[in-house]
């Protein structure tokens, strides 16, 4: 065999190279995590490693559509050959694919960036949860612990009718089921809140909640959506699009409904506040009314009439005075006229010694001798009496 002679380094290395390359380890796929990544003159140098071993890799004049990062899990296709100069074997990579979680994570980041740019995560577009929903829909696996957790929390906090939309929450086709469930629930008009979610799992398990169709279905939901996927540390696209993100399914149930006890307390405190407010208002107005009642108007209400009574009394007095004065004046006028008339009274001359003669036959005063005939009876009136006479002669 070979051990009978002394080899040079070159000889033995060439020998190893021959053995290895004769084994034809070509076009194989190797999965591993990238480390010690560096680039020089268009060539990529890196190590692939897992828990057990490390494999040197080189890729000449690469034109990958993405950039590699340390820590990334990849699948590399290539040939194993020996690099004599350095004395090691390495994988001459021809093709690199992002593999496992690495690929999913890249997809996740890309989709997240795209949807964010489109405004699907816009805080301003997020809907408010109703304070007290009347019916909620839960989109999750009917067999999962998440559903039980949510139902427990709901029955403890605020018994409410729940519509379950049973879907698969992982694996092929589950994203489509979730999308369909969202659409169906949105076609109803009795649901106030939707919870979509599932319990914890591996990063790959959560993938349906990172699908674009699920994200868009959440975004176009008219009903507010709470997303509760996995554990507190897991973030999915669904969490970013949903109106509210809950760290766990239980937390989502807590978010969806108020606590009955707290609610009762809140209502009671409001009733108390209301009573207090009404009482305050009543006291306020009572004080105003009482103040009014103490005003003069109400203490001496008849004073309201005082002015009117006075005015009436005054006018009444004036009326009486006016008529009295009028009548007095008229009387006075008559008296004056009477005096004047009296002054012209023919009888007044009797006082001065004159007398007046009447014809007896017709009782007419006569002032001319032609008015009497001899033998006529006449009456002569003097100041204190009258004498009946007969005409004896005329001249």
């Amino acid at each position, binding site marked *: 065999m070979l051990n009978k002679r002394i080899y040079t380094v070159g000889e033995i290395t060439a020998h190893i190279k021959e053995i290895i390359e004769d084994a034809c380890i070509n076009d194989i796929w190797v999965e591993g995590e990238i480390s010690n990544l560096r680039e020089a003159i268009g060539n990529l140098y890196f190590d692939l490693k897992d828990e057990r071993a490390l494999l040197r890799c080189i890729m000449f004049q690469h034109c990958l559509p993405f950039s590699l990062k340390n820590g990334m899990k990849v699948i590399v296709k290539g040939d194993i050959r020996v690099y004599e100069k350095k004395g090691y074997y390495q994988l001459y990579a021809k093709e690199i694919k992002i593999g496992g979680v690495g690929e999913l994570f890249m997809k996740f980041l890309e989709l997240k960036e795209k949807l964010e740019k489109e405004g699907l995560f816009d805080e301003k577009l997020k809907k408010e949860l109703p304070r007290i929903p009347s019916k909620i829909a839960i989109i999750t696996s009917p067999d999962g612990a998440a559903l039980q957790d949510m139902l427990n929390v709901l029955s403890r906090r605020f018994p409410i009718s729940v519509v379950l939309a049973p879907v698969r929450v992982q694996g092929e086709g589950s994203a489509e089921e979730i999308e369909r469930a969202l659409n169906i629930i949105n076609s109803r008009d009795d649901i106030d809140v939707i919870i979509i979610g599932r319990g914890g799992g591996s990063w790959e398990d959560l993938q349906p909640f990172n699908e674009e169709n699920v994200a868009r279905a959440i975004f176009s939901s008219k009903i507010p959506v709470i997303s509760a996927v996995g554990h507190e540390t897991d973030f999915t696209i669904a969490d970013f699009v949903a109106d509210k993100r809950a760290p766990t399914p239980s937390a989502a149930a807590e978010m969806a409904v108020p606590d009955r006890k707290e609610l009762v307390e809140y209502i009671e405190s409001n009733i108390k506040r209301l009573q207090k407010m009404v009482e305050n208002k009543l006291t306020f107005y009572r004080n105003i009314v009482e103040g009014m009642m103490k005003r003069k108007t109400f203490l001496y209400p008849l004073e309201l009439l005082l002015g*009117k009574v006075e005015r*009436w009394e005054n006018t009444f007095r004036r009326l009486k005075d006016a008529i009295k004065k009028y009548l007095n004046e008229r009387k006075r006028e008559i008296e004056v006229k009477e005096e004047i008339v009296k002054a012209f009274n023919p009888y007044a001359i009797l006082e001065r010694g004159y007398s007046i003669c009447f014809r007896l036959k017709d009782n007419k005063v006569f002032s001319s001798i032609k008015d009497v005939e001899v033998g006529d009876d006449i009456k002569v009136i003097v100041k204190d009496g009258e004498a009946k006479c007969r005409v004896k002669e005329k001249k």
Partner: protein
Amino acid sequence: MQSEGEEIKFEEALKKLEEIVEELEKGDMPLEETIRKFEEGIKLCKICKEKLEKAEMKIEKLMEDIK
């Protein structure tokens, strides 16, 4: 004059009364007219007095009610 059924208001009656008094105080109206006016004045006086009394009674009754 006020038509029937339509009650004259206190202020209106008093104003009319005052007008009559003023006319009468001038003292240049014929007697019959004066008497007629006086008669109307007395009527208005009565109306005013009744209204005032009614108002007083009403006020007193209202004050009773809130005691």
